[in-house]
């Protein structure tokens, strides 16, 4: 099976919904496992963006707190944060600095604030993206927070949490084959393996469609005013990709194809066993503002 050539016709042979799964499971990406489930929180607030999409920090903080509280089913948000981090932790907040749609500074600050509240010393908290391989906090981290905006991406289909760890390898271009399917491998490397406590997709202003390598187009960015939060990066990404797909269908009247299908999410599930990619096995908890929630 290792040398089997996967062609377009393989996609014709199965129904549309199962096509990618059939490809993924046919030998290039490993076997199917048991069927665990995952929980993801989607929280939205109508007022989190002000004029010109200025992020309202206090509202965002309350959204984040509410999300982690519901995710871990605690009575108070700080109980959840203290489950994530102990005071002796060294915590790297892996952000995303792409200049057209970076992680909002207010979101980085909200996360850091709660890590400090959990008792972690400020010197043991770092926020970084492309400099993580040279950042002492990340090199010595005992815990990571994975946070980035939700958007489409030229090589991986969607730019989500799994993709966000590309900065942890010195040769990112080596992970672009087969729609970035090898991205999940990065999560098995010692610098990150087992350290991620929570994954956060900023869906405040997601980008649902795009073309090409350096593409940003305001026509395809909308004020969704949400956060997608979970401990399972695959499930968080699956929800994010599903949201973008639903928006594309609504906007274009069809699921206009991305540059590549986001197959790396399924690969992270089926081959690297990092989490759950099947939406049917993801418990999506929706909180807050429900207008045009889409999913």
């Amino acid at each position: 099976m290792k040398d089997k050539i996967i062609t377009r016709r393989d996609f014709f042979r199965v129904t549309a919904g199962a096509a990618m799964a059939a490809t993924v499971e046919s030998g290039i990406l490993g076997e199917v496992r048991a069927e665990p489930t995952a929980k993801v929180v989607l929280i939205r607030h109508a007022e989190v963006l002000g004029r010109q999409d200025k992020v309202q920090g206090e509202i965002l903080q309350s959204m984040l707190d509410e999300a982690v509280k519901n995710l871990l089913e605690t009575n108070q948000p700080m109980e959840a944060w203290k489950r994530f981090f102990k005071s002796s932790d060294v915590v790297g907040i892996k952000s995303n600095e792409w200049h057209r749609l970076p992680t909002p500074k207010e979101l980085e600050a909200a996360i850091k604030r709660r890590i400090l509240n959990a008792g972690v010393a400020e010197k043991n908290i770092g926020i970084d993206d492309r400099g993580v391989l040279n950042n002492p906090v990340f090199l010595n981290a005992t815990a990571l927070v994975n946070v980035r905006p939700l958007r489409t991406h030229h090589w991986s289909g969607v730019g989500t949490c799994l993709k966000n760890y590309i900065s942890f390898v010195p040769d990112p271009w080596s992970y672009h084959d087969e729609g970035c399917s090898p991205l999940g491998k990065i999560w098995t490397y010692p610098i990150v393996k087992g350290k991620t406590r929570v994954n956060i997709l900023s869906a405040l202003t997601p980008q649902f469609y795009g073309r090409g390598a350096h593409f940003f187009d305001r026509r395809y960015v909308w004020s969704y005013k949400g956060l997608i939060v979970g401990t399972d990066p695959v499930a968080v990404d699956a929800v994010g990709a599903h949201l973008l797909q639903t928006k594309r269908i609504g906007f274009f009247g069809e699921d206009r194809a991305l540059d590549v299908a986001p197959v790396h999410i399924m690969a992270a599930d089926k081959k690297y066993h990092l989490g759950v990619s099947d939406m049917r096995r993801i418990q999506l908890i929706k909180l807050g503002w429900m207008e045009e929630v889409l999913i």
Partner: protein
Amino acid sequence: MVWILTGAVSMKGEEKGKMNQEISLPSEAGGWRWDGKEMNYDSRTLFKYIDGAAELYLAYGFQSLTVRRFEKSNQPPMMVELYEMASSEDAYGVFSFEHQDEAVGIGQGSEFGGGLLRFWKGKCFVSVYAEGEGAEVESGILTMGRGVSNSIPAAGAEPILVGFIPGKNVGLVDKSVRYLRSHVLLNQRYFIAHQNILNLNRKTEAVLAQYLQDKQKTQLLLIRYASLKEAGDAYQSFMKAYLPEAGGRDRLRTEDRKWTFARQRSEFVVIVFGAPTEADAEALLKATEKKLPRGR
């Protein structure tokens, strides 16, 4: 007023590129003034600028990238990115790969949509955009684009291969023509196979285009190889991997109930994907063969 590139302040930590020294980018357009700094990237450093996607440009023979930022009071900053490619055909290729918006008559081919101006001229591919929007910004982007285009002295040839595909008389879809130099890029526009079963490389050229047949989209792929032998090898490789049941014929009705045709003509390979009927596929293929150079 123009500034010669060598007068720019190169950003710390970035290498100077090898951009054609004859190109003198504008220092001002529409009231936006250059901030005096310039970032330069070569093929080793391009990844630093582009978020994990430099392969697009590298596939088209990327030589250098020059980035300048322009400012105007009470307006968002404007960015100019000038990519120098190996040839004018490559510059056309980068442009064609993402072409979807309406032309605005800048350079040799252009489009403007969503606040992004893209055009090509000579060996250069250029994008101009602002970090904000509004009528003044859009007008400024177009003015800047014209200035940059004027600073590129020489025009260049379009890929000859593009002239070998049939036109609108047989249903060519507007803005659907892609000029490709790698199977990775081909797969991004129309997935055929994970492996490079058509043996595409920097010495091959391919054109992918959409045609409307019976209200359905059919894909035409025309490839020119460096030699007759390479074309023959690629054709056999494709038939073996994609149409193994064709039994020596050049056609097959695939699982989607549509027709795939493939033929080799000298150093060319012509493939039609997804034609609604056998006759439609035959017609498109014949129209293409008719346009190929005579005597081949």
